[in-house]
């Protein structure tokens, strides 16, 4: 019965939350399986580090267990998870900044093309890798609030209203932070993204 909740319609979310509040183990397993990639993607957008993002995902689900009784279901479960993930990622970033100020170089590369494609040509490959590297550098340089908005928009594809609910800000603020983040990234990537 519990496993049916994984792909069930919206009404099943309430049932899942009830089971989570009762501490049902299967319900937690389903919660993790259903939302692990979503949580991981947001954490990765915030930290740009796969291992740390997996740790953050664990923290997020543990937080759900600790706080599920306070969840009033005014917003969707996914919105609540978005909020917890952003907060945990920001906490991680702050801890990380304090511990290893300027010493850490994550080894993630992004979007390396498949062998045998047009993009595999050395020049294109170099450009692609450079674009990924510059993009990461640009993301890393964004202020926390602009970065959270940018990640929720670009990686999760949330609407301005959903982002506003998640972060507890006004939609206008979301719009301006997003514009700022994109402007900064455009400047960072000017060499690779031709706009003129």
């Amino acid at each position, binding site marked *: 019965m519990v496993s049916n909740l994984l792909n069930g319609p919206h009404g099943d979310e309430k049932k899942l939350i009830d089971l989570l509040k009762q501490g049902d183990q299967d319900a937690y397993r389903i919660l993790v399986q259903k939302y*692990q*990639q979503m949580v991981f993607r947001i954490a990765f957008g915030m930290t740009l580090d796969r291992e740390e993002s997996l740790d953050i995902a*664990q923290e997020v689900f543990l937080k759900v267990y600790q706080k599920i009784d306070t969840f009033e279901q005014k917003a969707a479960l996914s919105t609540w998870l978005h909020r917890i993930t952003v907060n945990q990622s920001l906490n991680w970033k702050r801890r990380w900044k304090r511990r290893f100020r300027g010493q850490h170089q994550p080894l993630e590369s*992004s979007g390396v093309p498949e062998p045998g494609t047009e993009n595999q040509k050395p020049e294109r490959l170099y450009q692609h890798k450079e*674009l990924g590297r510059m993009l990461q550098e640009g993301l890393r340089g964004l202020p926390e609030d602009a970065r959270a908005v940018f990640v929720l928009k670009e990686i999760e594809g949330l*609407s301005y209203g959903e982002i506003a609910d998640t972060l507890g800000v006004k939609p206008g603020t979301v719009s301006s932070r997003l*514009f700022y983040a994109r402007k900064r*990234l*455009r400047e960072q990537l000017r060499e690779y993204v031709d706009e003129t």
Partner: protein
Amino acid sequence: MWMKRDHCSLELLDRYYDGEISPDESKAVADHLDGCPACRKRLGARRVVSESVRAAADEAVSRTDFSLLDQKVLDRIDAYRTPFLSKLKNIRFSWRLYVPASAIAAVLMVFFTLFLRQPADLGPSALINSLAGKISSVMIIETPESRHTILWFSEESAHTGEENAGQKT
């Protein structure tokens, strides 16, 4: 926000790309893009940034093994909800544990007995001397531990002078 020198502003293009403008505005922008290569190019650049970010996240997901995550989370939940006393019960006492524990307890007892005893009551400060006249009086006091000398002077003395009342300590 709408047009800047016959081109869409970046903000408008962002909102158009995000689907955050009204259907009428959206149609107007789409019509404009049909005839404006410059705005199409800017929109294309905007798309490249979005797609690169998404590609980076997708690639990170594809390289990550999520198979054990649910079990790890359940283990952490178990560890969190296990009461502290039950955790203590799980520790099995043996002679190997008793001997060092007793030694540590003995060392701690000796330490507390020798070094952390209550300090002796030092009592009040010692009065060295006092001089009392009709107009004023003076007392010389020395603190017992730090050997500080205190001079106490008063102009309201109604008592008879009492010279050399105390002994120097």
